[in-house]
């Protein structure tokens, strides 16, 4: 289907009021009635994936709430954004979760944070704690960032069935490294169902970005969304603002970003491999993987001045250059890592218990993966060739030649193999980019961010695609939404854990490489400053 065919088909849906095209995105405004037919057209007929949906309080601009649904036609490198308005007095929209199961969470997030109700589905509280007062929606613009509503402690007992044994995992548990709660219902040693309760940590990052910080400052808080893949978030945020403002980032800065992104991928994957080895009782593998990872951390420090939280990105470029002496050192360290890692990886997959426990466990079938629009290694291990670096190339990835490893079995072993292969690819990408790095400046000094522009950006983080959405405002984002890969992948765990042995549950949970600090990033807060009138228009995202 050609681009013009896509546009025509969308224009043909009754209720579509505006279609704006740009190089890599299609922005659609539609009535509420058109939402389901559009979802059916894009998701089911065109075979698009679902990235996320974003609630927005635009009452100060047009006296409405709005919701933005982002779909992706990966094979065409195209994002499709559907915007629908909801009444300010009684915000209510039809749910598309029956057509797009992957939209379940983001609809409930918009309900919690903006009070937008979704008809035609069961509603539940997802983000806010159960003791949070009803009718208080913290991302609404009339809710001050420093408000503290009176909450009451409510015991949440998830167990519904008393006849089946329940094994609680979390919120604090040795196999979990962040607060999250899984309730496994077991018969004998077999998991027959699972319930998940997340969002235990509310840091108010989005509200802070919309209320207190400037465009450049948000870069640094974006990096703090995650302790492992923070650089992906800061790159994604910088890119979304650059896209909205039409800033041409110097090529050299793009190369530096890509190099650091790949270094982050290598250390993140090595960390994960170590954790999996530990969960499998193969502690020698765990220790040696982390020993090798230490070289990568040294490399990160050499390039950015920090092992983590690099503070490297700015809107318009980067803050540190890579000189020749660093280049030689990087190549030397990469050779060491490459040699040691290949030896360890082949040893690890040859251990009988490692193979036996990973093969055939935690299976996510391709159709379920597609239905839930999972991302990253989880998608690629289930036969979906999804990688933002290839589908929507950003930074300097168009200059590197690399493979996207895809496995079809959908089990824990496939997810291991995807990551092991990706480490090799990342090493190769860094080497290629170092060889081709152009001279020139590393940042744009002056730029203006126009108000009211909508843009989206995606970056392939180690766990999958990060998506940042922005509506530009005065000096800071009017609306900034972050969708971490774990947010997209957790719902798949229900499929992966069901009918599996209890012993494999932590392994399967770990196999999506969950990052709950990324996922629990939202909430509370804003300034009580005066209202400004913005004219919202579609950007070039």
């Amino acid at each position, binding site marked *: 289907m050609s681009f013009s065919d896509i546009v025509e088909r969308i224009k043909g849906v009754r209720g579509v009021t505006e279609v704006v095209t740009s190089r890599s995105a299609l922005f659609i405004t539609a009535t509420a009635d058109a939402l389901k037919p559009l979802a059916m057209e894009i998701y089911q007929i065109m075979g698009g994936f679902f990235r996320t949906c974003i609630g927005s309080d635009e009452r100060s601009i047009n006296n409405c709430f709005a919701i933005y649904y982002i779909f992706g036609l990966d094979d065409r490198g195209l994002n499709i954004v559907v915007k629908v308005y909801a009444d300010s007095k009684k915000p209510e929209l039809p749910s598309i979760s029956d057509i797009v199961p992957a939209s379940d969470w983001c609809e409930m997030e918009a309900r919690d944070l903006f009070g937008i109700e979704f008809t035609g589905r069961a509603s539940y509280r997802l983000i806010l704690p159960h003791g949070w007062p009803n009718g208080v929606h913290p991302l609404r613009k009339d809710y001050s960032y420093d408000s503290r509503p009176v909450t009451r402690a409510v015991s949440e007992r998830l167990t519904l069935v008393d006849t089946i044994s329940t094994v609680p*995992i979390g919120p604090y548990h040795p196999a979990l490294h962040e607060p999250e709660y899984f309730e496994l219902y077991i018969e004998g040693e077999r998991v027959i169902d699972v319930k998940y309760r997340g969002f235990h940590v509310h840091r108010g990052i989005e509200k802070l970005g919309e209320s207190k910080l400037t465009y450049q400052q948000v870069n640094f808080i974006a990096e703090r969304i995650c302790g492992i893949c923070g650089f992906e978030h800061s790159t994604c945020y910088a890119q979304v603002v650059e896209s909205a403002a039409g800033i041409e980032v110097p090529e050299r800065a793009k190369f530096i970003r890509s190099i650091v992104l790949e270094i982050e991928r290598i250390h993140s994957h090595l960390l994960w491999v170590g954790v999996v080895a530990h969960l499998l009782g193969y502690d020698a*593998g765990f220790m040696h993987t982390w020993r090798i990872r230490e070289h990568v951390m040294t490399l990160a420090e050499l390039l950015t001045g920090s092992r983590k939280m690099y503070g490297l990105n700015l809107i318009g470029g980067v803050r540190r250059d890579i000189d020749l002496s660093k280049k030689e050192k990087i190549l030397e360290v990469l050779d060491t890592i490459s040699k040691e890692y290949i030896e360890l990886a082949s040893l690890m997959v040859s251990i009988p218990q490692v193979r036996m426990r990973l093969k055939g466990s935690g299976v996510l079938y391709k159709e379920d993966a597609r239905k839930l629009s999972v991302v990253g290694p989880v998608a690629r291990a289930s036969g979906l060739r999804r990688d933002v670096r290839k589908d929507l190339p950003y930074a300097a990835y168009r200059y590197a030649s690399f493979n996207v490893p895809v496995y079809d079995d959908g089990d824990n072993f496939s997810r291991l193999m995807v990551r092991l292969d990706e480490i090799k690819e990342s090493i190769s990408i860094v080497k290629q980019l170092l060889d081709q790095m152009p001279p020139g400046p590393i940042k744009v000094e002056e730029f203006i961010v126009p108000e009211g522009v909508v843009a989206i950006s995606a970056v392939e983080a180690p766990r999958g695609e990060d998506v940042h959405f922005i509506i530009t405002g005065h000096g800071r984002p009017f609306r900034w939404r972050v969708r971490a890969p774990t947010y997209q992948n957790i719902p798949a765990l229900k499929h992966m854990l069901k009918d599996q042995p209890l012993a494999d549950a932590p392994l399967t949970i770990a196999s999506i490489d969950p990052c709950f600090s990324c996922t629990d990033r939202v909430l509370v807060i804003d300034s009580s400053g005066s209202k400004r009138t913005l004219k919202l228009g579609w950007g070039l995202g």
Partner: protein
Amino acid sequence: MTYGPVLVSIGLASVLTLPTLLDGVERKLKAAIQSRIGPPIHQTLLDLTKLFRKELVLPRESMHTLYMAFTYLSLSIVAISSSIASIALGSIELFTASVILLSIIQAIHIAMPFTTYNPFSIVGASRELVLAVINESALLITVGLAILVNPLMSPPSSWRSTYFLLLLELLIVSYIASGRTPYDIAEAEPEIASGWLIEFSGPLLGVIIYTNLLRKAMVKLIVGIVLAGLTTGYGSMGLLLSLIAMTLLWVAYTVASTIVGRSRVDVAPKTMIFIHTTFITLLIVTHVLGV
């Protein structure tokens, strides 16, 4: 035989103190293989000292745990004394008694977590129960065969295949009974936190950890005793050989457990049944055939 009590005392003192140090050696050795520095060799002693200094906290709604823990400890000391005495004095009856006692200890070891109301303890104990039923049965059968093939605990005139098979099967049984990977599924699987140990803390945990070390020592000592019976015979040499074998096995098991991963609860029993059945069948066949 007048120096028998002296020998027994020396042996007993060794087996009561050595396990804590051998556990330290194990931790140091694992660290070396994993490219770490690791704790000092006397770290286990320091850990135990610290635990015994803490206040006594019992699992909720359970006084039975305390009684069981001390029964566990007392019986373990009796069992290990009995096995030391058996090789020092050449008593096949004492040896048999010690092996039976070991099975009783194993039963207490499994029953203890059931006195708590923690689902992790109960899942861990259930897993241990499955493994123990298979492994303890194999242990009793193998020891029975050992007594059958060498009832006098004295070196045979010539070596037969049966003896090698006997020692091999005993090695496997004792390795599994020592609770190492791939068979450490009762306490080390992450989804059940620390498995059956989760409810224990302070001095109670100290008692259980120390008793577990004694149990680990004893399962290796049994191999040493049978080996001594087949080579040096009982007495001072037999005792010395048993203790050396116990020490060397501790080190060998450490290395083996470091380079493998953990099995799964549904797979481990099947592999154990297969291995034990194969070896015991071969043992019986070679013994009957006299080869």
